């Protein structure tokens, strides 16, 4: 019996493209996002990802008003 390759997800946040509106923070069903302490080049505290646990649902991505601030990456383990 073939086993399905295991898939995990990661939420990449482009530090300088985030306006710190916290819509993603509100949207994440697993509460994996928060606004960080560092201020980016536009003057906003960018959101940061907790580092693990992303299920790739896209809630943060679609809630985010910025074109490329959030990227959801799908990782497939061989």
């Amino acid at each position, binding site marked *: 019996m073939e086993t399905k390759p295991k898939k995990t*997800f990661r939420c990449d946040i*482009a530090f*300088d*493209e985030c*306006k*710190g*509106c*916290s*819509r993603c*923070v*509100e*949207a994440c*069903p697993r509460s994996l996002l928060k606004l960080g302490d560092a201020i980016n080049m*536009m003057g*906003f505290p960018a959101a940061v990802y907790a580092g693990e646990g992303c299920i*790739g*649902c*896209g*809630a943060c*991505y*679609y*809630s*985010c*008003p*910025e*074109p*490329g*601030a*959030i*990227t*959801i*990456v*799908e*990782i*497939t*383990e*061989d």
Partner: protein
Amino acid sequence: MSEKIKLGRPAGFFDVFERRPGAIKKNMHYCPGCGHGVLHKLIAEAIADLGITHRVVLAAPVGCAVFAYYYFKCRSIQCAHGRAPAVATGLTRSNPDDVIISYQGDGDLASIGFNHILQAANRGENMTVFFVNNAIYGMTGGQMAPTTLPGQKTQTSPLGRDVLETGYPIRVCEMISQFDAPVYVERCALTSFKNIMAARRAVRKALQNSMDKKGFSLVEFLSGCPVNLKMNAHDMSEFIETKMTKFFPLGVYLDRAAEREPIVRAEMNYDADKIKSLLYPEEIQSELGDYKCSSPVFDKECRVKISGFGGQGVLSLGYILAILGKQRNFNVSWLPSYGPEMRGGTANCSVVFSKSHIGSPEAAENCDMLVCMNQPSVEKFLPILKAGGVLVYDSSTVKLPEGAAKDHYVYGLPASDLANHLGDLRAANTVMLGAIAAVMADNFLDDADKANLDTAMIEAVREMFAKKAKAADINIEAYKTGKEKIEFKSVPKA
């Protein structure tokens, strides 16, 4: 282990926003948390996924989305405030295969440009309207919008919107969905993930309708303006979901795309011969060839005023004389009375002939001939008939006052009665034409011109009734009757 991007910068956006001035080229100009950004992303993703970036033309509004053309990888145009649906109409009618997006805010769509959106919807223009309703004017700094909620404080409703003073929020989806023409109307909210996913489906459905040429689709998005409403992301979504949706319920208001046939617009025809056959009339061969009248009366302006009731063919009578002038190589002008005067039951026209320059086309003074087909005409226009000029009147309808026209040559005939006897009262004007021909022969024409006058007149009548041979025959009969029955009444007394 391998990685791929599941969700990233949508391909419907430019990679770098080169059109945006300043240093920031990856982000849009919207405030933090703005719903426009969320919607822009849904649109950019959809036009890329649907493979239509090359078919889309975006009409951008005045309002916060004024710079939408910085961002989308498609053709775009920035429109005047509220006018995007009209511009979009021009776009879609010009190039029906394009997918036209009219992107508008609440002030733009539901206030200054409200008529345009209603009319475009009612015409069923093949376009997709994305309507962002955030209950406030954003770009101008937080004034009351047509969709501002009762009691909501804005810069121009500082005590809260008073419905007794400013009315109630305007419900656009409810109104548009009453029309017969639109195919799809839905209201969504750019709030929770679930609502955003519903909005994503609506965006795609509307665009699919435009791709399929199904007609007018409108999607309204209840959207956050956290800066002007002074709310954080959480409160903004709560405001929309609890307060705004009370006035603006979410859902599909209209969806008749499935049963609607695609709009088929005519192909533009550029064939030169086709244009000529449309605009150039068929040439009528004249027995007289290229005959030019020789009577000296036409060396300068010869002015004729014709007047009577509307319906007596006064304008047509002048028109036949104008045709005559054209056929015989005169300069000729014909000027009707127009507007309310015409619709009020009287009509008059001026015809001026000349072999040289024609100044005024209005026979307002120094007329050579006055043709009156009713009583008021005599009173109104006799003063403009020059001394020694010719008056011709319809004695069935006109009683010439005692002592009138004593400076003129006067002719009369019962044109209306004669036409009635011929079986068509409408031919009174060509009876009059016959009279005019006789008068012209008597007063104006040299022998050469007299000799072929009937031929010329009859050819003019035939051209007038070019597609109606039977009518032409009746009117030629009427012409002959008029010419025969004309009665000479008096000469100038002086």
